[in-house]
């Protein structure tokens, strides 16, 4: 047996697990909590298999007699695998209570969930545009189904239809771009494309730029960048909480995985004006996202709008790749991690609170929350601070890296705009803190803090958000912000960047 087959084991575990779940779901005798635990076990196994692979510094093309070089295992993709799997485990565990209280969740839900993870892993490992497309579609198709999982809720069905129609349409852009590139290059392998651009990029500048832009459009759509954002608010609102959380955090990470790989290989050479295109989109995204977020009253929609803005911050760093900053890619990855921690926490609290109610949570529902549930509201405040980029939280360091990268790449306008938008975001995040802390609760009955799986994980996220912000090399034994950036740098070096 070839040794490189081990590198495929995490993916194999996930996809086999998905089929197992599909088979198990025909059984009527298994309770939801069992499905839940089996899925978590599969994901943890996969996570355990992928952890030792990280840090080898090598790029392996497993089974290259079958896949040629379409499929790559390097530090970059393994780090993303770890993020997906860890994120998926957290998403499931944080939402345990929510899922348990809904009777429409069953085995297929978990099968679809695992297929999504599988698709995202393909996406991260793809070294070929067609493989990337397959990964994207596997992940997206499962997500469409998950978004519409609550069949009796018209909002959910609307969200699914909207997302699916638009997503399928935009997905075809990716194919179109790949076809154009194939016509020019004669290959869809990313390494081939890079060498073609380096050698003959100048003479085919226009065609390559158009083709690359088509690829970017699909990516930007999935990220929710303005002007491809029209689906975001409705889909985030209509989806069940676990899925909203999943899309905002883990799925977004996977899109950035492929975005980074394509961008580094394709636009970073500098002849294709990728930075100009992306800068314009970034500016529009930052402004548009802020305007959307600031005008919402339902918290789910606020977070949806703010996720557009956070996508915009990452686009700042993405558009700086190839402009002279060594830390652009690690900055994006660090930001993904910081956004993941804070958004999982924030969505987790919302999901925990709405486990019992059917109504959408609004700002007003948090009046006097600090009196009723002091621990939860303290955590919520931490997540809001982190999302707004307030110093001493991980969100600040994420933004700090992004802005320094932008300044280092001489993208002063983007950096200044990013800071201005961070200022605007102070308003809608602090509004929630204000509602929680400024009003004393009408009924002074304190609800006891229940230490359950969900709440303890949310607490863990809150601790991470603080530690990531101030956790320093001063405190031994705790991975500091510094070492996180170091890990991201190791991963990004395998992109050849």
């Amino acid at each position, binding site marked *: 047996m070839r040794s490189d087959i081990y590198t495929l084991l995490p993916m194999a575990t996930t996809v086999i697990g998905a089929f197992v779940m599909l088979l198990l779901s025909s059984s009527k005798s298994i309770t939801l909590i069992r499905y839940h635990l089996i899925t978590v076990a599969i994901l943890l196994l996969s996570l355990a298999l992928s952890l030792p692979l990280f840090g080898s510094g090598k790029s392996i093309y497993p089974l290259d007699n079958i896949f040629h070089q379409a499929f790559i295992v390097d530090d970059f993709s393994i780090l993303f695998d770890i993020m997906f799997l860890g994120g998926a485990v957290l998403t499931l565990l944080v939402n345990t209570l929510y899922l348990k209280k809904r009777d429409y969740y069953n085995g297929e839900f978990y099968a679809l969930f695992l297929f999504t993870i599988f698709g995202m892993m393909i996406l991260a490992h793809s070294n070929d545009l067609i493989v990337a497309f397959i990964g994207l579609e596997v992940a997206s198709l499962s997500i469409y189904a998950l978004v519409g999982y609550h069949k009796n809720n018209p909002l959910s069905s609307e969200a699914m239809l909207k997302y699916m129609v638009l997503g399928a349409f935009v997905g075809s852009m990716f194919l179109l771009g790949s076809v154009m590139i194939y016509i020019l290059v004669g290959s869809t392998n990313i390494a081939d494309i890079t060498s073609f651009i380096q050698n003959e990029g100048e003479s085919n500048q226009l065609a390559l730029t158009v083709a690359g832009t088509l690829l970017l459009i699909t990516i930007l759509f999935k990220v929710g960048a303005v002007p491809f954002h029209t689906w975001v608010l409705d889909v985030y609102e209509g989806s069940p909480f676990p899925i909203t959380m999943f899309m905002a955090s883990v799925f977004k990470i996977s899109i950035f995985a492929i975005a980074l790989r394509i961008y580094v290989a394709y636009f970073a050479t500098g002849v294709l004006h990728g930075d100009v295109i992306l800068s314009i989109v970034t500016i529009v995204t930052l402004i548009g996202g802020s305007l959307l977020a600031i005008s919402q009253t339902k918290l789910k929609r606020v977070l949806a709008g703010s996720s557009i803005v956070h996508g915009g911050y990452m686009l700042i760093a993405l558009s700086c790749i190839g402009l002279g900053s060594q*830390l652009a890619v690690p900055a994006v990855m660090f930001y993904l991690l910081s956004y993941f921690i804070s958004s999982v926490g924030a969505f987790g609290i919302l999901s925990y609170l709405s486990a019992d109610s059917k109504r959408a949570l609004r700002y007003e529902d948090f009046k006097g929350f*600090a009196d009723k549930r*002091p621990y939860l509201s*303290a955590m919520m405040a931490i997540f809001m*601070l982190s999302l707004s980029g*307030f*110093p*001493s939280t991980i969100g*600040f*360091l994420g933004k*700090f*890296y992004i*802005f*320094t990268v932008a*300044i*280092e790449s001489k993208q002063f306008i983007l*950096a*200044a705009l990013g*800071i*201005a938008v*961070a*200022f605007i975001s*102070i*308003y809608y995040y*602090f*509004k929630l*803190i*204000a509602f929680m*802390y*400024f009003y*004393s609760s009408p009924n002074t009955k304190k609800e006891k803090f229940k230490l359950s799986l969900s709440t303890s994980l949310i607490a863990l996220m809150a601790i991470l958000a603080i530690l990531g912000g101030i956790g*320093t*090399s*001063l405190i031994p034994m705790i991975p*500091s*912000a*510094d070492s996180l*950036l*170091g890990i991201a740098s190791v991963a990004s070096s395998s992109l050849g960047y």
Partner: protein
Amino acid sequence: MEKILTYIVFTPLLFAFVMGVFRVNIKILRFGAILSSIIVFVLTVTLIAYFDPYQNQIQFERSLPWIASYGIYYHIGVDVLSLVIISMTSLLIPILYIYMWQNSYSGYWYNMMLLQTGVMGAVVSLDLILFYMFWETMLLPVFIMIGRYGHDKNRFNAMKILLMTVFGSMAMLFSILYLGYEYFVVHSYWSFELNNLALLHFDPKTTLWLSAGFMFAFAIKIPLVGFHTWMAPAYSSAPTPALVILSAIMAKLGAYGIWRFGYGLFSETMSYYRPYIIIFAIIGMLYYAIRAMSERDLRRMFAFSSGSHLSVIVLGIIIANIYSWSGSLYFIATHALSSAGIFIMIGLIYRRVGSVDITTLGGIAKVAPKFAFIFAFFALSIVGLPSTGGFVAELLIIIGAFKSNMSLGFVTIFSMITAILYIFYTLQQTIYGPLTPKTQEFGDLTIGEILMLLPLVLLLLVSGIFPSAFIPALEPQLQHMLQIIGGIL
């Protein structure tokens, strides 16, 4: 010994954290808060005892790597500038705890402890990112205290102070990041340390907008006239302890920022800003004084009075000679004492009659002579009554102004004259005149309250009668700083 500053900064935070996690009841919380403030006070006294004013450098320095890849250090240290603010903070906080002893909102106590850490941290930071962190963090407790425990449109005003101050800080953040980047360009490694960044040189245009980012943040914090719209609303709706910290400490941090970072980083550019800031400060000094005359709400009136005196402090800093600098530093301390005193007294009035509108007050001297006496003392110390510290400080600033420019000196005298106008009007309306229905039952100061205010009174007197005990200690380091920036004399 080198860790003493770290303990001073983080003791309150540690206490707050431990007590918050265990959700202790209000009695233990109160005790813990007082204990933390006393520990900090004792540590500060030790710090002052071991501080050598004749050594021209930052002392008790401690520098540990924080985020090594970006050259961010946990770098703290004190010189005479920060020492003055540290000692004022550690003196005022225990007094405020005694003031709010009856207060049973636990959130109040937590926020005060966090505030103390934030303020102390900002003052000792010598790394710009560390400074920015504390600078922003100290806003959070103020935001919550105004919004939660304040009055009169407090929620709106809390949001206003937050947004305005953060807007300033964001401008500063951009400048900080650019400075770090420039250092990276020159040395090919990052650093955000003040000493390192101070060595950078820029072309005049760049340095102008870079320093503008800092100046903007500090101008809002002080606030200079034109950047002041948050001040009166925030002061009038803040609860008394937050109000005292706002006026006595946090406003001073803006002036401290100009001193430390304005002169520390952009000493050449400051000469360009000099005329503009002088104009701002003079307009502010007079404008705030006129506004103070027209206010009927005591909190708003003394908010404007505080703004007027801060303009004087800024004027002293920007004139930049040894008289004005030692005057400004001395004024930072004495104004902290007297404004803390007056705002605590106003808080006591509010506690007694539930109003601070001067039309509803009057005749306090008849029913509460002790109260009236101390109130008048603090009010007059704000004017600059000879034999209080404020007089010495203002006199030094005025001398400095004369030294620099004759007409500037004449204008600066107006700070004392205008203050007399509104302070005497206030005294007339509140403690003299006929009794009003609200002040009929006005209770005099209790022993506890007198003991609480006594340290402030004594310190104001000592600083006014024996300024020579303090000012010579301030001068050597200020002199040294002046030599570095190439100031006059």
